[in-house]
Structure formats: C-alpha cells, structure tokens
C-alpha cells in the first residue's frame, strides 16, 4: 500500500514535470505582452526585393536592429538623378522581420555626412509617435529605443521629422513584418515591394539631378510613381523570378506620400490576400487596395509560365510614370490553362486610319540638345529605353510575329525619311522586314525633333545598322513636308 502510494506520488510528480515542460512550449499567453523573451539575436535586414528568412518556430527574442540613415544620390530612371533619403541605403528601406512577442532594441544611426536630423515612426510600435519621439537623431549620432511587438501583421515604418511629407517623398519608408506565433505558412518564394510617388522639379524624363518639388507634392501631382524607388527596379534583369508550380508571397507596402495603390498582377489572381496586412484574409482577389502608409500580403501559385506584369492599376501610373514590375515564371507551358495566341487578325472598327494617342500637339523640346555624336547616342539610348524598348526590345530584336526588329533591319536601312515619318506619325498595316511579314500598329510618338534625331541616330548606329546620323533638321524637314 505504502509502495503504491509512493509509486503514485512519483507518477504524479513526473507527470507534473513533464507537463510543465510541455507548458513552456505551447503555453497560450493571455496577452502578447506577456510572452517572455529568451536570449539576444541580431536581426537580419535585407534590401528590396528580398526578405529575411522566416521566423518559423523560433521563440520570442530580444532582437537587435541596427539601421543606418543615408542621404544619397541615385537614379530615378535613365538619365534622371535624384537625391534619395534612405533607411539602410535603399528605397524602400531594409526589411525587418520579427515575431509576436519579440523585444526589439532599435538603433537608429544618422550618418555624419547627412544634412538633416531624422527619426523613425514604426506602425508596428505601440507607443507615442511609433518611436518617432525617442529616435530623433542628429547627423553623426545614434539613438536607441526598444519596443515589444504586440500585434502580428505587416507594417509600414517611415521618417516623421518636419517636414514629414518631404522626408517620406524622398524615400524614407519601409516594411516591418511581425509574424504570428509559429510563423506564416511556408511558401516557395517571398518578395518585398513598395510603391512610392516622387515629385521632381522637371517633368517626367527630364534629364539631370532633379530636386524635390514641394508644390507638386502638395498638389499630389506626381511625376513618378514607382515600385522600389525607381523606374525599372523590377523589370528586365531585375525582374522577380519563379518556377511554374511554386507558391509566391508578396509583401507589398505603399510609402506614399500622396497616392493610394490599386495593386494588381496582370494575368494572375491572388489566391489569398491579407487585407491591409492584418489578419483578415480575402480569397480570389484581382486587385487589392494598398493605402498610403499601409501594406498587404498576398499569396498565389504560379500555374503557367511567362512574364506577369505588376502594376498600380491606376494604369497611367504604370505605363507613364513607372509603376510597373515583372514576375518571370519559367517552366513548361500549360495549354489547358492558357492556350497562348491562336489567331491574329487585324480588327479596325473605325476604319484603317492611323491610331493616335490623345495629345495636345504640344511637344516640349528637350532642354539640353545633344552637342556631339556621343551625346546623341547617350540621349538616344535613354529615349529608346523609355519609349521603344517595350516593343522593339533591348537589342532591337523585336518580338517575332508582333513587333518588327530594328537590328540589321532592311526596312529601316532602306529609307531614313520613311523611318523619321513613322516615328513622327505612326504606322499601321502590313510591312515586310527581313523577309517576315508584320501587320500591327505603332502609334505616333510624343517626342521632340531633337529626341527623334537622337533616338534614330542611336538605332542606326547600333546592332549592325547603316550608321546614319539623323539631325534635327532632317526630322523637321519630314515633319513639315506633310
């Protein structure tokens, strides 16, 4: 009897012990504020479009984040420079990945070369100013503050120093992710994208170092609306990549300062969207709204190969102001899901006239005319990359059956005036280039005579063409002859 008692006691004790071990692992805390932290860890920070490794099942930790503020010149688009203010040297700033219950010790360092004081307001912080007040730091100094992550979700951080709008407009924003206990469900690829609007003294495309224009910012009249800080940050060689069958998670934020994003991926449907970056999940979404100073997480499986275009579906921003990115998916085609083109016929309900872009007919002449052949080539390339590249492609190779090649093109080299005329007035109908028939539409291009001369000189002196030099006078002659 006594022995069984003892045995019972032992079982009870070991049961308790076991239980307590178990407890510490799976214990549900009443409030996320009660989650204890164990040990220190230096946070992994990544530049866009990359994100740090998922938190997985790790316990809450004291997470040390060191972020450096840099004011530095960068390229907005070909030939256009801009003085960016950045968290971590990139726009958007470095991605911070935490889990609920982490105690974040934040070190904000303002580089001595910087001109201005800065601070950080993190939407993931529960506290006055989101940390802004405690982090106000002069150039050459470092401020430290700490906070506990109480709510899971995807949050924006930004600078909140006067004038706030200007600091944000110059690129001072980024995302901080707070994962729930146990982490987000695993996926194959994760990417970090942030939209922002920029306001420059010169119009879109005007060359040189462009200063910030406060008046345009106040009017919310953006010259550039871009993903990841510049035109083309996610296109061409910088495109996001995936393989057929993979699941993708996008962390998309909107720094603003002014505009709301209608985020859409052309040719994809989001299987899941964490609306506004919170817990609410919507399914089968085409376009999701991302407020300025807000974010969203979306997941989808890529089922077919090809290039998918990421846009702000306020669509002129995508095609005229830069809010365009690419996701290139490699793998087998799947004709059941998507057939590809079956037939191509011309359909012209309004008759066979040449199609025009709506225009005021006022083309502003480029302010800095090219002084030499080298400059003509340089400026011409910039115009080419902005205007012609999408159809005629980087090496002038065109797209078979759709857009004729410019490289070693018999049609192009045969007649300069005809080529000038096509850029000036557009072209519709069947032509034969290097033995292949093309039947499509090129709209007239909104370029000044200088720009046309430069871009055609660039085309004629590239890719094995006849090395003609086109001058402004030649362009004006063709223009006036019609």
């Amino acid at each position, binding site marked *: 009897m006594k022995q069984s008692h003892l045995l019972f006691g032992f079982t009870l004790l070991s049961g308790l012990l076991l239980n307590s071990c178990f407890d510490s692992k799976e214990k549900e805390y009443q409030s996320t504020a009660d989650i204890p932290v164990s040990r220190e860890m230096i946070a992994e920070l990544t530049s866009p479009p990359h994100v740090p490794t998922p938190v997985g099942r790790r316990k809450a930790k004291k997470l040390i984040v060191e972020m450096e503020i840099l*004011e*530095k*010149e960068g390229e907005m688009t070909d030939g256009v420079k801009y*003085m960016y203010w950045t968290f971590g040297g990139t726009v958007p700033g470095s991605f911070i990945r935490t889990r609920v219950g982490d105690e974040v010790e934040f070190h904000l360092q303002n580089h*001595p*070369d*910087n*001109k*201005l*004081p800065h*601070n950080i*307001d993190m939407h993931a912080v529960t506290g*006055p*100013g989101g940390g*802004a*007040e405690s*982090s*106000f*730091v*002069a*150039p*050459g*100094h470092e401020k430290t503050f700490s906070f506990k992550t109480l709510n899971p979700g995807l949050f924006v951080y930004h600078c*909140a*120093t*006067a*004038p*706030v709008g*200007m600091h944000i407009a*110059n690129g001072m924003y980024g995302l901080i992710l707070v994962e729930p206990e146990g982490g987000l469900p695993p996926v194959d690829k994760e990417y970090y994208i942030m939209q922002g609007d920029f306001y420059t*003294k010169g119009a879109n495309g005007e060359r040189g170092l462009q*200063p*910030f224009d*406060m*008046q345009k910012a*106040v*009017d919310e009249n953006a010259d550039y609306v871009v993903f990841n800080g510049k035109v083309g940050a996610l296109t061409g060689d910088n495109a996001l990549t995936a393989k057929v069958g993979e699941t993708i998670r996008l962390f998309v934020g909107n720094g603003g300062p002014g505009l709301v994003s209608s985020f859409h991926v052309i040719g994809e449907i989001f299987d899941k969207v964490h609306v506004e970056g919170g817990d609410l999940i919507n399914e089968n979404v085409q376009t999701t709204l991302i407020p300025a100073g807000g974010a969203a997480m979306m997941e989808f499986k890529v089922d077919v190969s090809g290039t998918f275009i990421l846009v702000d579906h306020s669509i002129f921003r995508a095609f005229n102001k830069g809010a365009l990115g690419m996701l290139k998916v490699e793998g087998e085609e799947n004709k059941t899901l998507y057939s590809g083109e079956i037939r191509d016929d011309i359909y012209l309900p309004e008759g066979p006239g040449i199609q025009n872009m709506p225009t005021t007919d006022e083309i502003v002449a480029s302010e800095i005319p090219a002084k030499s052949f080298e400059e003509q080539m340089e400026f011409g390339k910039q115009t080419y990359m902005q205007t012609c590249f999408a159809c005629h492609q980087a090496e002038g190779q065109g797209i078979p059956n759709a857009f004729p090649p410019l490289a070693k093109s018999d049609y192009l080299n045969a007649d300069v005036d005809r080529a000038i005329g096509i850029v000036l007035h557009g072209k519709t109908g069947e032509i034969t280039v290097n033995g292949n028939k093309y039947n499509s539409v090129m709209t007239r291009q909104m370029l000044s005579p200088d720009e046309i001369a430069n871009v055609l000189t660039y085309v004629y002196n590239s890719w094995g063409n006849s090395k003609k030099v086109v001058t402004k006078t030649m362009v004006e002659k063709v223009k006036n002859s019609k």
Partner: protein
Amino acid sequence: MKNLAFRLLFVLLVIQTCAFSQSKGMVYIEGSRYIPLYGRDSTVVEVKDFEIDVYPVTNGEYEKFVLEHPKWQKSKILKLFSDKSYLANWKSDIELKDSENPNSPVTYISWYAAKAYCECQDKRLPTIDEWEYVAMADETTKDARVKPEFNKQILSWYEAPHSNENTIGLHPKNVWGVYDLHGLVWEWTLDFNSVLITGESRKDVDKDSNLFCGSAALNATDLMNYAAFMRYAIRGSLKAKYSMKNLGFRCVKPIKK
C-alpha cells in the same frame, strides 16, 4: 561759399569715421520687428541693431584660435564641452587634415567651442531671431520669404551633399552684404535649444496650434516655412556638446549705444 565747402568736408569726415567704426569683417544690420516661423512668445519679435560676420568662421581662423587658446584643442577640450567628433577633420591639435581647405567653414564644432570663440573676440553667437532676420534676405530684398524662387534655392541646398567642403563666399551676398547663410553649412545660434522640437513633428504642430490655426495643415503658400522647418528641426535635434560635419557658426556684435 567757403563756409559751405567746409561744412561739406565736415560731413564727409563724419561719415568717414562712422564707416570706419564698423568692425573688420562685419556688416551693420539695422534692427526691426518681424514675424519668424516659430515665435517664442508671441508672433512678432524685435531685433535690435547689431553687426554680423560677413562669412562663417573658417578652418584657418579656427586654427589661429586654438593656437592662442590651447584649452579648445582637440585633445584638451573638456568632455563636458564636446563629443567624440569635435574637430574630427583635424590631424592634430593644431593642424587640419591635408584634405581640408583652410578657407572652408569650420565644422565639427560644439556650441561651447563656438560660443567661446566669439567671446574671445568680444562678440557672441547670434540668437535665432537675429540669425533668421538676416537670413530672410536675398540679394535684393530684406524679406525675401515671399519669393518662391528664394525658398526653392534654399530647399535645394538642403538636399545637396558635401556642401561643407566648399569654400566661403561662393554664393552671392545678400542685401545686407552677408555671405553663405544658406548653401554652405548649418550655423549654431546662441539659443538653438529654446524652440521645443520634440522630433515628433506632428506633435510639435499641435503644441503651436495657435500658430497654425489649430490644425496640422500647412497650406501651399507656406513653402518658405518648409525651409525654416528644416532649420528648426536640425536645431531641435542638437545638444550643446554635439559637433557635426555640416554645422559651423559665425558671430555677431551688439551695437552699444
């Protein structure tokens, strides 16, 4: 007739002596009342007549100063009066790095050091009100704050990097004859910390709600305020012992009557 000529000569002589009494390297500023962005008490402030240095103090001038006053040398300055970056661009206690130009404004200077420099010359640092008063003039007008171009120019400097490496006097002087208030470096003021900027700008706006019609909104005509805002922000972020790559100073002298 002879009498008249004598009088004329007398007048000329008097003017001559007046002009002569102006301190070397300084210009006379006639005081007035004006409305700065952040008034301390009410909106209008009064600035009395004073003289101000035409240029910011240069590296070369500061070299002379530390030779005469060794306690402000890099290795001898009290920790209370400086931080680690004090004269960070000097290779020794008395010598600039070779890469630095003696004609560039002296920077990496604490408020204590700047104040001592001025006092040793029988001058003092300007108050915010004095500094802002002189700095609101452009080449032709004493108060150019209403001109959008003037404000755009200032804002564009705030975005230009490495301007502290330029030498003094490259920009045109303003109507008072003062150079480089904008476009070169930030400048210390005597009472830089008297304007309470917490670093949480939206909150600051609340604190001064009477200045902003009770709301946080700035209207579009206040472009000039953005430039001034940035100056107040930088002042608000400073402590007296800080020294910074882009922060220098100049001195003023009150007129004794």
